[in-house]
């Protein structure tokens, strides 16, 4: 005797959150049953593995039918097929669009193309996330990317409206979209120590300060939040004077050193490295007009600034102190005329470096 057909349909769709997570994580029905059994779901119920299997199958089917709707979450709210209480809808969407940080770290900054998708089995093997789950996450990135790419207005807000995500998750997606669009390099070995949240923070800084949208002007061009403002990047070249003009460089150094003296143990190293570090930061700024260099933004920050500091054993406090004075001292330089650009640049650089300066 075998069960040929087995369905259970309810008027108000109930979904077990645990099973939903297993489904999202790409477990097969049999594996999910095993996990549930080990989780002790049968305790207290006089039920067998058979019952559990049938229940898991039912739920998996429901999820599969819902998946189509989850691709455009706005539809989920006004579709008629499943009567799902609104708070459950929110949960379904939020979980569906949630991602594994290990996974996203692998594809961050990569082109969301078919080629990348083909390599997902490698990613899966590397991260331990099931291929199915990898695909879902990748498709989510791609879907969000495609939708917001065409839209005007603030990136985070667009994502939140079209995918009904929480603010936190919408921001993360904004970061992913931003990274994918600018193709920032994140996979180099030197960057491995950085988490997705580090990058997401930096992306947030870049989006809110360096894009056209950062100026609060959304009427001119399309997709302004996704690209860095061209004019600003052009202006950054002017900062070069800080390193090319010897007087200015010396002046800058002495100002910073005066302010730092006696306040940190690493003062000697700071003084010795000042010119190198300053060159590093200003050079990064000057090169950003070149899209290729933009991709290396983070690797440059690490190589040119963070690594030297780390080898000199700066503490986080040292870093903050140094960057604050480094930024502020430039204002005192009478021959340096690019205060606004400098602030806009250094504001982001400072917060990014502070975020990225850890082990």
């Amino acid at each position, binding site marked *: *005797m*075998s*069960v*040929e*057909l*087995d*369905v*259970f*349909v*309810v*008027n*108000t769709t*109930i979904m077990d959150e645990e099973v939903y997570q297993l489904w999202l994580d790409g477990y097969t029905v049999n594996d999910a049953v095993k996990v549930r059994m080990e989780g002790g779901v049968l305790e*207290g*119920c*006089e*039920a*067998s593995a*058979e*019952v*559990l299997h*049938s*229940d898991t*199958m*039912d739920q998996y*089917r*429901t999820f*599969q*039918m819902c998946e189509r709707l989850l691709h455009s979450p*706005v*539809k989920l*709210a*006004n*579709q*008629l*097929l*499943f*009567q799902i*209480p*609104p*708070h459950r809808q929110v949960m379904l969407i939020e979980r569906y669009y949630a991602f594994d940080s290990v996974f996203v770290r692998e594809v961050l900054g990569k082109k969301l193309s078919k080629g990348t998708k083909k390599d997902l089995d490698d990613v899966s093997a590397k991260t331990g996330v099931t291929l199915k789950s990898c695909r879902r996450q990748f498709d989510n990135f791609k879907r969000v990317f495609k939708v917001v790419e065409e839209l005007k207005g603030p990136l985070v807000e667009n994502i939140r*409206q079209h995918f*009904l995500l929480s603010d936190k998750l919408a921001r993360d997606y904004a970061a992913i979209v931003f990274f994918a669009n600018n193709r920032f390099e994140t996979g180099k070995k030197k960057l491995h120590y950085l988490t997705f949240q580090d990058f997401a923070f930096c992306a947030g800084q870049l989006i809110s300060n360096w894009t056209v949208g950062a100026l609060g002007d959304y009427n001119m061009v399309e997709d302004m939040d996704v690209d860095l403002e061209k004019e600003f990047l052009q202006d950054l070249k002017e900062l070069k004077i800080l390193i090319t003009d010897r007087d200015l460089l010396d002046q800058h150094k002495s100002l910073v050193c005066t302010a730092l003296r006696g306040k940190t143990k690493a003062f000697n190293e700071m003084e010795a490295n000042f010119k190198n570090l300053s060159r590093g930061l200003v050079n990064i700024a000057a090169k950003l007009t070149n899209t290729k260099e933009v991709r290396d933004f983070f690797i440059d920050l690490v190589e040119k600034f963070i690594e030297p500091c780390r080898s000199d054993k700066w503490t986080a406090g040292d870093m903050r102190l140094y960057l604050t004075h480094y930024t502020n001292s430039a204002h005192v330089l009478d021959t340096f005329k690019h205060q606004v650009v400098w602030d806009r640049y250094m504001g982001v650089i400072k917060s990014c470096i502070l975020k990225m300066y850890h082990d």
Partner: protein
Amino acid sequence: MPGKLKAKIVAGRHLPVMDRASDLTDAFVEVKFGNTTFKTDVFPKSLNPQWNSEWFKFEVDDEDLQDEPLQITVLDHDTYSANDAIGKVYIDIDPLLSCEAATVISGWLPIYDTIHGIRGEINVLVKVDLFNDLNRFRQSSCGVKFFCTTSIPRCYRVALVHGFVEELVVNEDPEYQWIDRIRTPRASNEARQRLISLMSGELQRKIGLKVLEMGGNAVVGYLQCFDLEGESGLVVRAIGTACTLDKLSPGTAPNTTTHTNTHTLPNTAPTSNACNSPSKDSKEPVFSEDPPHSLSGPPTPLRTLPSSSPPPFSPSKPCSRQSSSSDTDLSLTPRIGMGSGGSVGKEAGPLKTLLRQHTQSALEQREFPIFTLTCFPPGFLVHVGGVVSTRSVKLLDRIHNPDEPETRDAWWEEIRQEIKSHAKALGCHAVVGYSESTSICEEVCILSASGTAAMLNPRFMREGCLDTGGSDHRLSRQPHPGMVGSERGEGEVSSTWLGFEDASPPSCGFVHIPYDEFNMPFPAQLTYCYHCRRQKVPDVLFTTIDLPAEAEVTGKGCLIQARLCRTKKKAQGEVNATSISNLLPFMEYELHTQLMNKLKLRSMNALFGLRIQISVGENMLLGLASATGVYLSALPAPGGIQIAGKTPSDLSYDQHISTMQKRIDDTIAKNKELYNIHPPKLFTLDPEAFTGLNTECIEEVVGSPIPDRQRSSRLFRSTSESSDELSELDLSHGKKDAFVLEIDDTDAVEDIQSLLTDAPIPAGFYSCNTEVMPGIHNWTSGLQMFTSVRVYRLSNANLTNQGLNKIFTDLCENLLKSLYFKLRSMIPCCLCHLNFTVAVPEEELIQVAVTAVAMSFDKETQQAADKALTRGSGENEEQLQFSMELCGESTISNNQPTAKPSGVPESAMVHSSRAPSVDYGSFADRCSTWLELLRLKAHTIRRGSVKTISSSERCSPLPEGRSRSLRSTRSLPCGAPVTVVKMTPLSFLPGTRIVKYLGIINMFFIRETTSLREEGGVSGFLHSFIAEVFAMVRAHVAALGGNALVSYSMKECVFMENPNKNQAQCLINVSGDAVIFIRESDQEAIPPLLTSRQTSSTGADGTT
């Protein structure tokens, strides 16, 4: 030209992509009614078209309005080739034809395609302008209200019950027409859907006409069925109970009828007083009026049915071999149990006979004194005799002339006649809780009908003499089915209004035997009623109705199922029919034995809602009997089950028997605990009543002997031979054994096996197949309707009966287990109205479908509510109040303010201030010991805080409320969020009040696929189809302005597959009553705790 139908097509959304090139669709809509078609403009390149069409107007006969559905077809415009159909929407206009139902159909309806399923939605507006038709010869019956509900709908009161109406329409099945060979599956499915829609409309119209002729204005308990007879055609038939209903004005409604509980009555001062005073006046006229009427012969004439049904009893036709097993039924059914109240009641003898004559004369004029109702206004049901059922095996032949459905009509006619005569044999003049069904396999068809023989109060049948006012208000009080056992007051009222105060004592009248004690139609063990001590009652009572509101029940009830599988040889034609009809009596017998054993095992003495289904397949017959067992306080305690061996010499054999016996005894004891069955001991009765008992009675109480007459009764063919059995009865009288199973009997071994293999129900769950579970009152608003379908393949063909039985039992048990597991989050909860349907779709396949509703209840206040209800006050308020009282008491007695429910200081304040009013007096009655009471109290204290939280939780986050908040935060491109539509197979929603019935929903869908694998196999296919059917039902209810569908049922779920061809097809027929409900709390003073609930329910109102 008495009607103008107007339709407007507003917009579409979520349409499928029809043009691959542009990923868009150029959609337009065709609106068709009868032969008239209108079209909208093409809305180019959009998946969310806005047509905003003009009003399309159809000027039509009201006859057509009733028959035809409005057909809306959405198409994709194609310049070069034929336009592609996206899908269709059929809209039943009928609800718009009654002024009391819906006035407009407006909303988003799913666009349905039989191959692709739901493909987007369309927003439509439909209205009807109806002109009064005074033509006496009219063919339409607009305005007759239809209800699937098998009780008097909640916002109506019944003025008169006219009786049985039936109709039957036949046609050729389009699936089997020659043209089907050349048309596409889609065209064929659509033809079928349309035809059935038309036939249902016609059927409803014809029934409506009959109702009008009888002078009624509504059909209650409307039951429509399809017989897919394959080659021989398509039969749509319906039965119902014609009534005259009066709508209650909204002002009086809350305090009288529609209230889900009647207990508000005594306490709510002004309105009920107004109602009560005329009721006193009414007594007199009632009393004086009744006898004269009955003496002066037949009272106001009852219109006999306009006989569209052919003359009764046409003996077996040459073309169709028929054989009835009904005689066997009779000998079986009565054996098991009946009601009582014989005409020889001590004090009220003469009066009673009078009543009896009277009622009979009123009823006997009807062709069929049959009622589809299962739940009655108080006082309607006088006595219950027992289950009557009939089965008949027929051979199908092609229906040659669709306009002359006489053969089918004659078949049913015969069956109803037989039912009627069975009822008569039980001393009853009417049949209630009546239903009909068929099972078809190839050309063999089993027609079945069953009901409960009963004596009814004639007052509801007669016209003119029903004094409005007092009695009306009583009539209108539809008691809540859940409020059983606490209705002493109610019972008294109903007895007064019979005019025979002494004759029918409160609450136990219906179990008194209706037949003559000294001339019993069958052997039964009679005792004096345990409640009134005056009338005789049987030892066991089987019925098909719901538990009457006035019945007193000890403990809780439970679902009892008997399952049976019998192999049969494959055969053709008459041989096949004969072998089936030979098998039927044995199956019925065994099902009854199983039911009886299981009932005894649970220490119960009555079955309600009994439904026996026998399904025929090519090589087997399946029998499934479901009922809800209860312990009726008025009936004697059931004896145990005694196992007897035939060869007592063998020692090991004896041992085997004694272990079996022990297991059975243990199970009985366990079940008594589980279902809380602790009947009062005999000595607790008042001495007066005690002295009134004769010795025989006492003897029965001690031993409650039931004769071992199983084997012998097999031989009996009919109730008329009961005299033989009577002697049998005397012989066995000396035995003290309760119920003897002889182990040598292979059947008995099987029985014992099945008895003991029934898995216990998990803790926190209850189940029943009636409206609600006796003994549970405090339902929360949490409910979940579900449908589960399973198909099993029997792997090896050479199974024995016993093996098959085991498999079948396991299937049902596993299915139940699965349900309990899936619904575990609702604990404590009760699965109500568990409706099993079995079928044998193919050789070696067994299909089981279950529809039910899971309703959660408050455990903490369970006992409290019992008491609260006896005190007679509003349910919600009372429930809450009592839990508070318990908490308050706890804080005082423990001197520990910290034990108060945390987080809700205001309510805690209320608690302590309320505490002095606690009265455990009557409460203690319900608890068997003080210890239990204390335990319960401690429990409540422990769970006190949980309780408060859960109640507020239950109140606040209602879907309606949430959807509102969502609306404000999200900008939805496609308008307002979807209305939440609740669905339930019950006639009510707990904690709510139905304020309006919007009309009947009766939909038929076909879904077919040629890509079964791609759609997730058979399970995926059926899962999405059922989900789609639910969605369409919800959408149509919402479009009528409703927020719930009550009395929902899935009548047909025919599934066919051909995995080799990657194909499958499924037909589903669903029905129910669309209603508007409001939360009860809207009407009442709401404690601060419940304010959140109020806000959310206003949200609900907003969405309706």
